[in-house]
């Protein structure tokens, strides 16, 4: 039998090649990944990067502009802005990741069942979700957190529930398209019970859209949680969360101490940007009609 023998290159070379191959497919996704990884490293290894303790205040150095000792200056409490911005990355991921996971865990099964069963169940669930989406999420989130108490957990819960309709809808439309396909009919003909049809056959094939959404919804979660903190709900000073920091820094913008609000703001923008880029790029990769270059 005719066969050519291909030598296996060392692991690192293969990994680099795979990376180059993927970045060819989507430069957007690659750029997004780089930004996300940057912040992830900051969040995980924050202690290595922080020159000062983010919550200890230097009472003698209140509102000092950026300098060699304090790269981003100090805030109204004399705390080092640079260290606080780095530490704040933890909140970005710490809120977004559980919130998205919660949305996925709630939204996907509902989307599966609604899409497959159709009928009354589908109608009721979708109208309910429509109702949820009509409310501006900020107002709803504000109301719920204000009512249930100002804690991190509550913020995560609210964001998780509020965003689940997106995943439900995306999965539902894929299931609607797939439920009449031949492989589903074949699965029924083989004697599969409904739960296997949903989770063994439909789920793996309808999940790409939802997975592509995770990055974008994570960006949304980061933004909304920062907004909530900015509005004074959820996390509060002196916790080094970007939204809270911007809230505190807002009052100092007028008096000229721009660094207190701008640096956390820029960090926020970049993380959200990176997540959105990645989400966009993933769509490119998953789209079967992407053009292949020479």
């Amino acid at each position, binding site marked *: 039998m005719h066969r050519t023998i291909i030598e296996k290159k060392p692991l690192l070379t293969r990994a680099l090649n795979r990376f180059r191959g993927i970045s060819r497919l989507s430069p957007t996704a690659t750029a997004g990944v780089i930004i996300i990884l940057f912040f992830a490293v900051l969040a995980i290894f924050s202690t290595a990067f922080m020159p000062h303790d983010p919550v200890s205040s230097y009472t003698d150095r209140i509102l000092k502009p950026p300098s060699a000792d304090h790269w981003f200056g100090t805030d109204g409490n004399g705390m080092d802005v640079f260290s606080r911005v780095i530490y704040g990355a933890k909140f970005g991921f710490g809120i977004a990741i559980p919130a998205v996971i919660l949305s996925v865990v709630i939204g996907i099964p509902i989307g599966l069942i609604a899409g497959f069963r159709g009928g009354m169940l589908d109608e009721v669930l979708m109208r309910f979700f429509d109702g949820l989406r009509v409310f501006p999420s900020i107002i709803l989130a504000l109301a719920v957190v204000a009512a249930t108490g100002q804690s991190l957990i509550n913020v995560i819960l609210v964001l998780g529930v509020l965003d689940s309709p997106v995943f439900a809808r995306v999965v539902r439309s894929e299931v609607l398209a797939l439920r009449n396909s031949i*492989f589903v009919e*074949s699965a029924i*003909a*083989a004697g599969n019970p409904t739960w296997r049809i949903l989770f063994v056959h439909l789920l*793996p094939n309808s999940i790409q859209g939802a997975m592509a959404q995770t990055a974008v919804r994570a960006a949304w979660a980061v933004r909304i949680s920062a907004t909530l903190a900015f509005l004074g709900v959820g996390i509060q000073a002196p916790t080094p969360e970007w939204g809270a920091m911007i809230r505190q820094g807002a009052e100092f913008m007028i008096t000229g101490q721009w660094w207190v609000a701008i640096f956390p703001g820029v960090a926020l923008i970049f993380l959200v940007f990176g997540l959105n880029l990645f989400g966009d790029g993933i769509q490119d990769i998953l789209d079967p009609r992407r053009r292949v270059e020479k």
Partner: protein
Amino acid sequence: MTDVILSAKNLVKRFPTGKANSFVNAVNGVDLKIRRGQVLGMVGESGSGKSTIGRTILRLTDPTSGEINFAGQDITKLSPGKIRPMRKDMQMVFQDPWSALNPRMKVGDLIAEPLKIHFKMRGSECVDHTEHLAKRVNLSVDFLNRTPNALSGGQLQRVCIARAIATNPKLIVLDEPTSSLDLSVRAGILELLQEIRDETQAGFLFISHDLGTIKLISDEIAVLYLGRVVEQMPKEKLFEAPSHPYSQALLSAHLPSDPNEKLNKFTLAGEIPSPINLPSGCAFHQRCPVAIEDCKTSVPKNEIISQGHFASCAQIAHGKNIIQRDS
């Protein structure tokens, strides 16, 4: 007389089109009997209802009316929950192997699925059985760990067959199983199917539009037109002595691969009418070269031509059913 594993009486299936009082009349009164160890071939073109019949007798869709009897039990009105466990005894092989298999599952898992569902097999027993099935269909066990996109059409169809025979069913419906495959691959699949039929004595319903394939594999052949059986015969008669004008038309349109074989062609006018607007009387009368007045108004009854051979044509009694060819 061999056992009848499935019989259908007066099967009717209509699909709503969304418009009021408008239906796709896919199946319009079909009787059939499938026997153990025998292949009933169903041949017809689009609109004949052959695929719908295959799905209906397996209760993958519900009949509009009529009776379906499987292994002595009336399954016409059983609930899906009661039908499901019966599926270990009645299986289907679909036309397009690429779309019939979950693209994200491994081939081995796809073959093992019926074993897991119906026999609750797990672990090494399951793996052994799966390998045995793969070998049975001449599929290399190396493929068991791959996903369907790594296999060719012929190999994928073998996977589908392995899946269908996993639970040793008594009835297998095959809907155009070789139509999407290359010529050189078809022979192997047909041979495999014959072997399986001989070994397991399962009853086969083999649906196809290709006369050559049908003749090769079937014991008996039923010709369908617009949801009715217009002729049923033992397999030799299809090429030797088709009685119904439509069967003759089908045969004349068949192109043999020998260039010197004369084509006894007569050109059939028009196209197949839509099953939404069934013609009155005999569904074939508008295109039939030997139609008479009666054909427009009444559905002809079955005329018995010989043992196991009947056709539904009014002209048979007058001896005028054979069409003269153009030279």
